[in-house]
């Protein structure tokens, strides 16, 4: 069966009937995408509140009786885990992956719609299990998002009874959900592309999603392995990771397991996870920048190669998270080198985004503002990554606020900036209405400047040596009192930025009803999702006939063409040329 035949199939088997099959047990990729997005944003808001509570304690110590050292650690842990896995991974791949893949490749749906539906419901189950841990005795785990043994499962750590079990089980369920979704995304991209859509004609968004999904498929097993083995250690008293240990005066039954083994497994997942989040963001921001600068993306092939190279390299840098765990110096040298090498394709991408903007016809729309904001925050976070990638620089800075500032800039703020850019960019296609521009711009400026007000001072706190994860700094000789003033100002900024996100949520909901009606292709974009016969696209996406692709996704401002963009499904003869016919030299370029 050829992929064309698969794509052409008008599969009526999951045509939605009533409300339930249309919005709840739906097998339509667009509905599943929205379900993923709503669930992810919902848990993301919980994590946002947790971070606000943490900041209240740090900014104004001992002012709030409901935060004690144990609950503080629990908030830190849950904030990190939710943001990285249940929000970012789920929203970027489950949400945008689901929505955009079939539309951008010109397919009617994912190749396995039922599996797709199952993927969402399994994800929801993992979220429910995770949230349950807030309500069990002892509360959620407070082991830090890395869940390092032995402390993660030893008495004395918050949530060491039930919280940690629920966390590990929830992660295992999430991985099952991701694998179901991921197999679907990859298979759909490889098998169901429309006629003429070669891999190199795909928008960069798809390259980002494809590579990130493959990374996820290969990296999440490492987390699953460590979760299973830690559950065994906890429930069956095996000693995979648990060393011989004396806890609270008792000799525990464990014999010489290796906690470092866990760290290797965890970071073999953990580092690719950074790119599972970053690569879709790289892809989407490229498309937003090209569309709103009315210019083809600079160095498309290099951009694709860079995505693939980053994906490959991301598997050989994991131990840079473990310099302080102690390792063979040659190991440290190897991992520092690979870490610095990964900066090359990454920097190449940043240059290409900037060069795309150069002499572009830049429209400072809300998505574009967020995209440009991303270039700033990502460069910033990426550069501090170069510092931390060196063993000698990492050792004194490890476990300080410098690291917190670094990873929040690079994989917290940056992907979130792209998520906002993407939501604003695709909102008119998803809902058929414009969002409110004024609220969007207000949201951008306060978020962008606010995140700098939060994270820039954190670098300085890190230099001072303020340790991360601490409930309170207390008295120390090396930390000046002014650090506390800085902490208070960071907290105020964080609360403001947190509240501003409510404006975004309000904007999304308000515009659903009151937003101005949007045309099918309001930004003048070239990729296929903007060429659907209906906006928002209906079930089956393309009406009676599938699109045929005649060009790449970046034909903006083509010399000689009347319009400043040529959609991918338009032939040369359908284009209106200023001179009445295509320029002669066009064939030779």
């Amino acid at each position: 069966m050829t992929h064309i035949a698969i794509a052409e199939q008008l599969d009526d088997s999951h045509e939605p009937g009533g409300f339930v099959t249309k919005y709840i047990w739906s097998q339509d990729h667009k509905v599943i995408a929205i379900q993923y997005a709503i669930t992810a944003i919902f848990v993301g808001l919980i994590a946002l509140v947790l971070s606000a509570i943490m900041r209240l304690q740090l900014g104004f110590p001992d002012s709030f009786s409901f935060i004690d050292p144990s609950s503080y650690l629990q908030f830190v842990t849950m904030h990190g885990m939710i943001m990285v896995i249940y929000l970012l991974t789920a929203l970027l791949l489950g949400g945008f992956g689901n929505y955009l893949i079939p539309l951008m490749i010109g397919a009617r749906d994912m190749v396995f719609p039922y599996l797709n539906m199952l993927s969402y419901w399994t994800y929801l189950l993992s979220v429910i299990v995770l949230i349950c841990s807030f309500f069990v005795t002892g509360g959620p785990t407070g082991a830090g998002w890395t869940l390092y043994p032995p402390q993660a499962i030893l008495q004395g750590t918050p949530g060491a009874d039930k919280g940690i079990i629920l966390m590990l089980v929830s992660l295992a369920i999430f991985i099952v959900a991701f694998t179901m979704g991921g197999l679907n995304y990859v298979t759909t991209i490889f098998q169901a592309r429309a006629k003429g859509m070669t891999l190199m004609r795909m928008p960069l968004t798809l390259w980002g999603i494809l590579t990130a999904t493959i990374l996820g498929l290969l990296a999440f097993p490492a987390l699953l392995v460590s979760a299973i083995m830690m559950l065994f250690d906890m429930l069956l008293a095996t000693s995979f990771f648990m060393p011989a240990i004396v806890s609270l005066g008792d000799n525990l039954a464990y014999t010489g397991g290796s906690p470092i083994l866990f760290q290797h497994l965890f970071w073999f997942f953990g580092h690719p996870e950074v790119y599972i989040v970053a690569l879709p963001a790289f892809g989407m921001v490229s498309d937003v920048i090209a569309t709103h600068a009315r210019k083809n993306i600079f160095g498309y092939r290099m951009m694709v190669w860079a995505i693939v190279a980053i994906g490959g390299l991301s598997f050989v840098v994991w131990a840079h998270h473990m310099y302080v765990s102690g390792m063979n110096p040659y190991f440290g040298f190897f991992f520092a080198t690979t870490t610095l090498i990964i900066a090359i394709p990454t920097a190449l991408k940043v240059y290409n985004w900037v060069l795309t903007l150069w002499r572009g016809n830049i429209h400072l729309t809300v998505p574009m503002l967020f995209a440009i904001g991303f270039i700033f925050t990502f460069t910033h976070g990426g550069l501090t990554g170069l510092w931390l990638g060196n063993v000698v620089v990492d050792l004194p800075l490890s476990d300080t606020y410098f690291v917190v500032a670094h990873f929040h800039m690079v994989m917290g703020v940056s992907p979130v900036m792209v998520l906002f850019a993407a939501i604003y960019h695709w909102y008119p296609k998803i809902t058929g209405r414009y969002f409110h521009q004024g609220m969007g711009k207000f949201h951008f400026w306060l978020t962008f400047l606010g995140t700098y007000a939060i994270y820039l001072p954190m670098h300085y706190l890190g230099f001072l040596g303020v340790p991360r994860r601490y409930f309170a700094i207390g008295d120390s000789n090396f930390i000046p009192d002014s650090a506390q003033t800085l902490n208070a100002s960071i907290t105020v900024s964080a609360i403001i930025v947190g509240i501003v996100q409510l404006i975004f949520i309000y904007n999304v909901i308000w515009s659903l009803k009151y937003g101005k009606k949007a045309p099918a292709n309001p930004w003048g974009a070239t990729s296929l999702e903007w060429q659907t016969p209906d906006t928002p696209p209906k079930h089956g996406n393309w009406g009676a006939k599938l699109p045929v692709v005649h060009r790449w996704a970046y034909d903006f401002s083509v010399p000689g063409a009347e319009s400043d963009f040529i959609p991918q499904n338009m032939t040369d003869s359908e284009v209106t040329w200023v001179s009445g016919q295509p320029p002669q030299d066009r064939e030779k370029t």
Partner: protein
Amino acid sequence: MAIFTGLREKPWLSQTPDLASAANNSATRNPGKTALKFFLAVVSMLFFLFIITFLSRTQFADFQALTGKPWLPLENSTQLWINTGYILLASVCFQISSAFKQVNYPTKLLMITLAIVFSVLFVFGQLGVWQTLAADGYLINTNPANSFFYLLTGLHVIHLLGGVLALLRLLFRLALTTNHQQFDANLKLVTFYWHYLIIVWLVLFALLTSSTETFKTIAQLCGF
């Protein structure tokens, strides 16, 4: 490799798209096969990581291999060999049912049934080994070697049972339709999966019944 040729394409050049060749790229593929390949990559990664962890753990002082000395339980691995025979037979049955065009449907179904029976026998055989080990005092938490034995064989059995479930679903769907072509295509995938499970089992079998000296050599080769 077509993918590398594809990556050199210059999509910005204005060209008459060779639609036929673009379509032909995947003319012989089907989505089930692609999905299975990626799924097996995921499963391979899972077992690979477990095996690496296992090999690394063998070099700790408290690790006591299950073979190597006459009194150790897996020194006599007859039952494991019998189990290997079961899973091999299951695979052979699948191969007969899916590879030969002249096999008629009743024979095909008979072969599939036999394959399921052999697979279930394999599972019970593995459970038997577990019971023998437990009865001899080799519990899951008494030594890391035991822990890995239960964990890895258990994981392998779960994958096999998953395959059986998928197969039962296929048979159920076959009963509802007359579309034999789709069933045959899927049966090929199931056969492939069983062959894959044999390879995984053989690797696990070899590793789990290795002696301390073998582990030491492997670890030295791997640089642990």
